[in-house]
C-alpha cells in the first residue's frame, strides 16, 4: 500500500526546496480542506504556504487543470499522479505549456478513494496506472507487481448492451444534467474560451437544461476530447449529479487507441491523434 504520509513529507520537502531556491514561483499540490476527507487543490506560492500541503487517498484532483490559468512562462512545480502526468504531457503536446517551465513532482500511488463512497477508484473511473509517466522528481516508491487491470474493463457491460438500451441509459443520464459545467471546468483538457456551448453564433444548443441541449453538449464534448482524454475521471467526480461521463470518455479513448494505435498523453513527442493523420490510415475505420 502506498505510504501517504511519506509522500506528503516528500512533497512538502520538495515544495519548500523549489520555492526557496526560486526555481519555481508556484507549487500546485494539495492543501487542507475543511476536514480530512475533503482536501483541496492548493497553489503554494511561498515557503509559508508549504505547511498547508497534504496528501492522502482523497487527493484525486488533477492539478494539471490549473496549469493553463497561469501566464505562459510562469515557472511551476506540479504534483502529478499517473493520470495527471499524462494530462501534462497532453498539454505539452498541444503547446499550451512548455516542459522547461515545469517541474513534475511524480507521485506513484495506489488506492486512491472516492470520498463519497470510499471505494478505490484506480482503474474504475481513472486510467488504472499507478506510476507517473513523466516526472522530474519521484516522491515515493514506484508501484510494481500489481495485477494489471485494463481501464477499459468497466466498459464491457455497456458495450454488451443492446443499442436501444444503451441509448436509453445515456439519455437518462444526460437528462439529469443541470448544466453547471463542472465537468468541463474540472477537465484539464477543456481550456477553450469560449466553450462551443456558450457561443451564440452559431448557437449549438439551448441554454436551458433540457434533453436536446444536454445531449448536444455532452456528445460534442466527448468528441472534442477524443484522443486527448487521459482518463483521469475528474469530470465524473466533479459532477454533482453523478453522471458517469468517464464511461463515454473511456470508450472514445479505447476506440481511438484501436483506430490510431496511440495512447493519449504517453509521450511528449506525439501529436494528438485528431490533429494528425497517416496516409496509410485505413478506410476500414469508417465502417
Amino acid at each position, binding site marked *: 500500500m502506498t505510504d501517504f504520509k511519506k509522500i506528503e513529507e516528500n512533497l512538502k520537502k520538495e515544495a519548500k526546496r523549489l520555492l526557496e531556491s526560486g526555481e519555481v514561483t508556484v507549487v500546485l499540490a494539495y492543501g487542507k480542506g475543511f476536514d480530512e476527507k475533503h482536501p483541496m487543490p492548493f497553489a503554494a506560492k511561498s515557503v509559508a504556504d508549504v505547511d498547508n500541503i497534504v496528501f492522502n487517498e482523497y487527493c484525486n484532483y488533477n492539478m494539471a487543470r490549473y496549469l493553463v490559468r497561469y501566464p505562459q512562462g510562469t515557472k511551476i512545480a506540479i504534483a502529478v499522479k499517473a493520470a495527471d502526468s499524462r494530462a501534462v504531457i497532453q498539454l505539452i503536446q498541444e503547446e499550451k505549456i512548455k516542459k522547461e517551465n515545469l517541474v513534475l513532482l511524480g507521485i506513484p500511488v495506489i488506492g486512491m478513494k472516492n470520498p463519497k463512497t470510499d471505494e478505490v477508484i484506480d482503474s474504475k473511473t481513472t486510467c488504472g496506472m499507478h506510476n507517473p509517466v513523466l516526472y522530474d522528481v519521484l516522491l515515493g516508491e514506484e508501484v510494481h507487481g500489481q495485477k494489471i487491470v485494463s481501464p477499459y474493463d468497466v466498459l464491457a457491460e455497456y458495450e454488451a448492451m443492446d*443499442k*436501444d438500451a444503451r441509448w436509453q441509459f445515456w439519455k437518462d443520464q444526460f437528462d439529469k444534467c443541470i448544466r453547471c459545467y463542472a465537468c468541463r471546468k474540472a477537465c484539464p483538457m477543456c481550456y477553450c474560451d469560449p466553450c462551443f456551448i456558450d457561443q451564440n453564433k452559431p448557437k449549438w444548443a439551448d441554454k436551458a437544461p433540457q434533453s436536446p441541449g444536454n445531449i*448536444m453538449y455532452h456528445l460534442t464534448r466527448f468528441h472534442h476530447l477524443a484522443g486527448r482524454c487521459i482518463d483521469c475521471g475528474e469530470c465524473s467526480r466533479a459532477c454533482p449529479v453523478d453522471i458517469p461521463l468517464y464511461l463515454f470518455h473511456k*470508450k*472514445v479513448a479505447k476506440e481511438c487507441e484501436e*483506430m490510431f494505435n496511440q495512447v493519449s498523453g504517453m509521450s511528449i513527442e506525439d501529436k494528438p491523434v*485528431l490533429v494528425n*493523420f497517416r496516409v496509410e*490510415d485505413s*478506410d476500414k475505420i469508417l465502417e
Partner: protein
Amino acid sequence: MDFEPKILGIACNWCTYTGADLAGTTRLQYPQNVRVVRVMCSSRINPSFIFRALQLGADGVLVGGCHPGDCHYNTGNLYARRRLATTKKILEFAGIEPGRFRVEWISASEGNRFAEVVEEFTTQVKNLGPQTKLKIQE
C-alpha cells in the same frame, strides 16, 4: 405510406459535389431523399453538424469527400477520415444506429458512384426506419 427518409448530404466542393453534378447532368436516376450541402472540404465538417442534423430531424447523414490523396488541400480528407471515424464511434456508443452515418470518397468523375452510394444509403436508412432518438420533438 412508405417511409421516405430525410438524408443530409454534406459534400466536398471539389470532388463529391462535382460528382453529384455529373450524376445530374448525365441524368442518372437516384433517390431524392438526399439534400446536399456543399462545403469546401470534408475536413470543414464539424462533428457537431452531424449531431445537429440528427437533432433537427435528419434520418441519416452522408458525407462525401475526395479520395484520400486527392484532396484539393492535400491533406484535408486525411484529417476528416480520422475525425469522422471517431464521430461514428461516438454515435454508436450513444446508442444511435451507426448505419445512419456514412462517409464515402467520391471523385468529380464518379457520377455513377454518387448515384450508387445514394441509392444504397437511402435503402439502408429506409430499413432502419425513422430516426427518433436524437430528433427533437416538436
